[in-house]
């Protein structure tokens, strides 16, 4: 019985929280513009820049951590041979 009561209370709380967010977002004026800016920015950053221009070099060129470690160690120990300036 107590368990059911607690569950019902928790359900009401979740409902109140959801309504709080829903009404808050619905009541926004300037906030809509700001959210649009945020969403466009996140889309540009994660769907375009990250995917097409900023791959993680070590993760895309090497499959294992050992291979990555070997590559970096090579860069550290043979800097003159393994690096180019341009």
């Amino acid at each position, binding site marked *: 019985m107590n368990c059911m009561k607690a569950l019902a209370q928790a359900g009401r709380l979740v409902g109140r929280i959801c309504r709080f967010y829903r009404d808050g977002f619905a009541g926004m004026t300037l906030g809509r513009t700001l959210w649009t800016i*945020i969403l466009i920015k996140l889309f540009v950053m994660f769907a375009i820049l990250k995917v097409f*221009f900023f791959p*993680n070099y070590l993760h895309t060129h090497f499959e294992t951590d050992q291979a*990555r470690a070997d590559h970096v*160690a090579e860069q550290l120990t043979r800097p003159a041979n393994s690096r180019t300036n341009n």
Partner: protein
Amino acid sequence: MLESMDLSMVNWARAQFALTAMYHWLFVPLTLGLTWIIAFFHTIYVKTGSEEWKRLTKFWMKLFAINFAVGVASGIILEFEFGTNWSNYSWMVGDIFGAPLAVEGIIAFFMEATFFAVMFFGWNRVSKGFHLLSTWMVAIGSNLSAVWILVANAWMQYPVGQAFNPDTARFEMQSFADVALSPFAINKFTHATSSSMMTASLFVIAVSSWYLLRWRHQRMAKRSIVVAAVLGLIASVFTMFNGDETTYEIAQVQPMKLAAIEGLYEGETNAGLVMFGVVNREKTVKDEDMKSFHFAAEFPGLLSFLATRSFGAFVPGMKDLVNGNADQKIMGVAEKMQRGKEAIASLDAYRAAKKSGDASAAEVHLAAFNENKAFLGYGYLKSPEEAVPPVALSFYAFHIMVSLGGVILLLFVGFLYFLWKGVLEQKKWLLSLGCIGYFLGMIAGQAGWIVAEVGRQPWAIEGLLPVSVARTNLSVGAVQTTFFIFLALFVIMLIAEVSIMLKQISIGPEEN
């Protein structure tokens, strides 16, 4: 000018990082500082129940939201750049910063998602006490979310609590406390957050001064100025003392940076602190006769005091640090380079021995590496002079930051004095100065980061890893392309912020 610029990949990558970091820092100080000011406004509203303080709180919250929306996630671009342009560095420090930065991101996200929503949506919908608590939590959470990135930056300048693992080619954390609580990290965090409070106070004063000059929202503007000027003055005094402590730390762990920001070529006892000066750009550490400055005015003995807490003490100059100074027990860069090269050779030999299964040879080479590993980074320098950062830029950035810090402190005092006298509205000159004060604060903040980052060149990690080795093997064209993409993106975002912000300021608080 263009002929003298080094247009290699590493410099484009540095330029891109500087562009992103400086753009990011346009928003961060306002976000960090404004949250405290809003929390104070909100507290006064809850204490007094005055509708005017409520309107005022909501108005500054709105400007805060605009700044937050445009600035949010701009720091993530820096992480993209680490993975693409600085992959060697990212790999090497991943063990130290990867987890804390991820945890910080998650905590910041949940704190912001919860308390930001209550702060903005909670008017008349949650209890006043819980609403106020949420506003304070936003202030605390925002400032805490800056901790680890500043600890990471401090560690790069003073890499304590780590050991290099030659098998994984990574710096591994040996002591969390040494990394998180190093005096350099604490100073960096407190300096960044207190100077952010100054910048945000200047922003509030700038907007309020503009209203006073136009005879709009007089009462609200003066109330805003009282809170902002008091907090700004406290933050200014704290930042000044904290800056003094930072200078002392730099003198202990980055003496080359201190010498560069003061244009000090020859070490001196009773060294003076330059007040104003015009740097001789032709001068290098190799020149014997050329003067360091075309003109300079200095406070005698003050640099010695700042660096050592003693007026008569010796402060090493760039020549002492490059060439060495036996009397002062300073090892020259040439000797450090030699030991660095030995460390690199030992590391190479160790890895080869490990690969061939020769355990005893590996042990010998590892011992040799450990003897010289503190100088690892010097092994990559091509000449001792490479250890000197750009002197003129470091010098001017430092002096602009300090001078503007003094002007800003006086500005806060001026506003409080004339407000107390009841004649602030009549002081048009001060209100006009107040309108541009915010930009002075932004310039001081950007100059501060130039001091921190340019002053530590050529190092990505002080003494251990130069930027030329920290980078990825990419073509210069790839980095140039993304540099200009970012430039365009940042300009568009900035125009969006400024236009929305100006529109809301123009509308003012009452109509909101």
